[in-house]
């Protein structure tokens, strides 16, 4: 009982250390990445802020919205124009005080509403007018695949398989028109390019309806779900929306405004900022001339605007003089510098601060129809959650290793060349040969050093110098030279033996030399009193006295041989052995498998060093007392 505990104890210590230190260590190593995921806005989820339609537009004098609204932060917009006439706002309700607006017509869509039909025809309005199912406002939305149709292509990839697929104004029937393999959709016949030439090219590729509905071509609406029989499906004739006001004084001078949601996404093509009914363009405009490092005068398509150089806003009067469309710089912009003219620029994305090129005239409204902000970290609310949600921890969590191991071994079955056991055996063979080679050379050198003393002074500097040559530099050279002799690592164990032996012979030489010299003077006196010859002293005393040193140096040498063998395996197109497997996982960036391979190679090292110990007990039983 006591004995088995003694044997078990080291294992328990190892496990305890692995677990107690493993978690804090893994956390420490993963902390920077987790912190970046938490704090870097580019890794956050995005939220699109939109002006929103009322639930019902049949009676404009009594509009109801799904959320509470406030006249301070928002405004009513009719067909892209702020409503000037007076209205009152109370909670979710809005009441227009006069009938100044054109009434909104609700046009029923043509098509059967029988609980089956999902396709309806109507002329598509130039702006997206809202669609109502009974009193419910429907949400549009679709996804288009990245592949371009070319009249031949059959496969298109999507991010998800939810929803229905449509093409050329037709609902696609699963099994008949297409098959799905994962998220890859394969059409039964290629999408016609001829049809797409006639219309917008987008309709030539299949779309996935992700919202309640989507336009499948210029005259066809496809609903994700068929409206139940008896319900009404109506398209409004005009767009009425509640839009967001921008914060900022409108006094004819102020040009700085804030959006109400922070952390603006800078490269947002959907952003729509208006001054009254005038849409400020998000896209910049190029001058006619290119910046070549010499030109100072540039002609822009329009007068005014904010001029930016490589994304940085310049100051009029200080950096340049503007005269109509012509801009003259004090210093020529650098070659290939990107000059752009903007209606407005983002001064501070985090604070969602915009600077307009022209100050809005007093009495006008600055409002946003739609814009996108970074919402919140995708990974969680704190560093710890973000750490746990990392897809790959730089240092894996201890328990995670145990759960990964079975899949790792299942991934490489015995039949496969990449099977771990086979790789380990291959590497073990190389290590053994390398150790024997290094041991032979090491012992030979040590014996020579002890027997012929001057030889040590002559050769030891070279032996030491050999170890300062980086093995990484040596291996390709050696492989190259041996290849000239027709010896490759695929056909011969020699390269591995040389590289592993090269690393292991040094500790063995040093250890064995020290051992052969470390004879008790008393033992030497005794041999002298027996008038023993030099050889008798060597073989009957020195060799035996050196045994503990030799085995200790062989233990170091065994570890060095393993390292050398692993390195030699990374250097070749051999595709065998643990070293090659490690290299493969490094290149694949597969942290979990990499750590498993590390652990396996450390275990190999332990086994090899212990094996030297077993041999020692076998060869030198007298050492048992130690």
């Amino acid at each position: 009982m006591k004995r088995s505990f003694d044997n078990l104890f080291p294992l328990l210590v190892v496990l305890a250390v692995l677990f107690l230190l493993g978690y804090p260590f893994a956390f420490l190593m993963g902390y920077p990445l987790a912190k970046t995921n938490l704090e870097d806005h580019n890794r956050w989820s995005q939220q699109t802020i939109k002006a929103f339609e009322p639930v019902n537009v049949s009676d404009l004098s009594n509009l109801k919205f799904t959320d509470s609204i406030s006249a301070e932060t928002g405004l009513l917009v009719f067909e892209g124009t702020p409503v000037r006439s007076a209205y009152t706002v109370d909670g979710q309700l809005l009441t227009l005080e006069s009938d100044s607006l054109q009434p909104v017509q609700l046009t029923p869509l043509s098509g059967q509403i029988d609980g089956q039909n999902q396709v309806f025809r109507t002329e598509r309005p130039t702006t997206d007018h809202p669609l109502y199912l009974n009193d419910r406002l429907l949400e549009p939305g679709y996804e288009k695949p990245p592949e371009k149709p070319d009249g031949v292509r059959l496969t298109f990839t999507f991010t998800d398989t939810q929803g229905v697929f449509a093409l050329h104004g037709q609902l696609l029937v699963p099994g008949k028109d297409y098959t799905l393999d994962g998220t890859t959709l394969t059409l039964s016949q290629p999408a016609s390019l001829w049809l797409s030439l006639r219309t917008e090219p987008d309709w030539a590729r299949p779309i996935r309806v992700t919202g309640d509905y989507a336009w499948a071509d210029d005259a066809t609406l496809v609903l994700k779900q068929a409206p139940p029989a008896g319900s009404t499906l109506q398209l409004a004739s005009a767009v009425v929306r509640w839009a967001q006001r921008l914060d900022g004084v409108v006094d004819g001078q102020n040009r700085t405004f804030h959006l109400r949601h922070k952390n603006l996404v800078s490269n947002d093509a959907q952003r729509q900022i208006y001054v009254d009914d005038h849409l400020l363009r998000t896209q910049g405009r190029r001058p006619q001339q290119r910046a070549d490092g010499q030109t100072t005068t540039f002609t822009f398509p329009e007068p005014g605007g904010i001029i930016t150089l490589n994304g940085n806003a310049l100051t009029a009067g200080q950096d340049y003089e503007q005269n109509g469309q012509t801009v003259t710089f004090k210093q020529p912009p650098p070659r290939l510098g990107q000059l752009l003219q903007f209606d407005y620029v983002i001064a501070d994305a985090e604070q969602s601060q915009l600077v307009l090129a022209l100050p809005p005239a007093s009495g006008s409204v600055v409002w946003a129809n739609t814009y996108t902000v970074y919402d919140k970290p995708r990974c969680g609310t704190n560093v710890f959650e973000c750490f746990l949600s990392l897809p790959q921890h730089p240092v894996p969590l201890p328990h995670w290793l145990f759960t990964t191991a079975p899949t790792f071994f299942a991934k490489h079955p015995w039949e496969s060349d990449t099977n771990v056991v086979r790789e380990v055996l291959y590497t073990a063979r190389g290590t053994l040969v390398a150790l024997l080679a290094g041991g032979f050379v090491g012992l030979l050198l040590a014996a020579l050093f002890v027997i012929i003393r001057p030889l040590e002074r002559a050769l030891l500097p070279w032996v030491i110098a050999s170890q300062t040559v980086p093995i990484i530099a040596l291996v390709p050279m050696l492989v190259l030279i041996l290849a000239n002799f027709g010896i490759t690592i695929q056909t011969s164990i020699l390269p591995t033996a040389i590289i592993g032996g090269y690393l292991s012979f040094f500790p063995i030489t040093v250890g064995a030399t020290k051992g052969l010299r470390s004879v008790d003077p008393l033992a030497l006196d005794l041999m002298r009193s027996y008038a023993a010859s030099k050889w008798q002293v060597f073989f009957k005393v020195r060799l035996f006295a050196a045994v503990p040193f030799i085995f200790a140096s062989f233990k170091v040498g065994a570890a060095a041989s393993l390292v050398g063998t692993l390195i030699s395996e990374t250097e070749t197109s051999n595709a065998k052995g643990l070293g090659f497997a490690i290299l493969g996982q490094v290149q694949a960036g597969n942290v979990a498998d990499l750590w498993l391979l590390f652990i396996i190679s450390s275990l190999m090292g332990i086994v090899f060093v212990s094996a030297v110990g077993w041999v020692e007990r076998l060869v030198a039983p007298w050492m048992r007392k130690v």
Partner: protein
Amino acid sequence: MTEEAVTNEHASQVASAPIISATDVDKVFPGKGGQVVALQGTNLDIASREFVSLIGPSGCGKTTLLRLIANLDSISAGTLLVKGKTPQQARLDRDYGYVFQAPGLYEWRTVKRNVELPLEIMGIDKAERQKRARRLLQLVGLEDFEEHHPWQLSGGMQQRVSIARALSFSPSLLLMDEPFGALDEITREQMQQEVLRLWSETHTTTIFVTHSISEAVFLSTRVVMMSARPGRITEIINIDLPHPRNEDTRESERFFELVTEAREALRRSERASG
């Protein structure tokens, strides 16, 4: 060298000249802080079959003298003859067995193979080696421990193996350098008894270095007093205790007288050098 030859040679030595003959022997060790004179003007003759103890304070050169005789060090001046030959020749002829303070057993050899080692070096064949080793182990009472390794034996047993090893090739001279220094009093007295028994059985001339006055008196036929700085012989006392000596000898009147005499002689030599 066969056993008979050794015995014959031994017998021929009895009548002839002294086994050790030292005349004006000096030993100087060169050192960083100047030379150290370990022995000065040493004159000593030891006859065959004698048991001579060298006794004196630390640094008096008693071990040095022993090592000079064994040719483990060489003399600086004077003449030293061992069995009428130079010490080196005597060593090469394997004329002596040496027992150190530490047993100095080779831990990778069993007890028997340790005893066999000198014979192995002399090139004696295996059967003969084993026969002699067994006989010597019987002589020191360790025949049951032949196949043990040194670390399995007690300190006293190890020292007995070491003595057996020194005697394995039947040298005519046995040099012992404080062999019982590390042993406890009881074991020590047993070992002394044993050494006396071996001495009387093998007729081996013995030179014995010790710190203990009573040990020297109990064992020896002559006790050589030495003093330090520089190491030299100051006085030699003849011990006329009758043989065989045993536990009763230790309690005899004469034993105490001789111990007292030796102690006073030592004090005298201390004062002289002091």
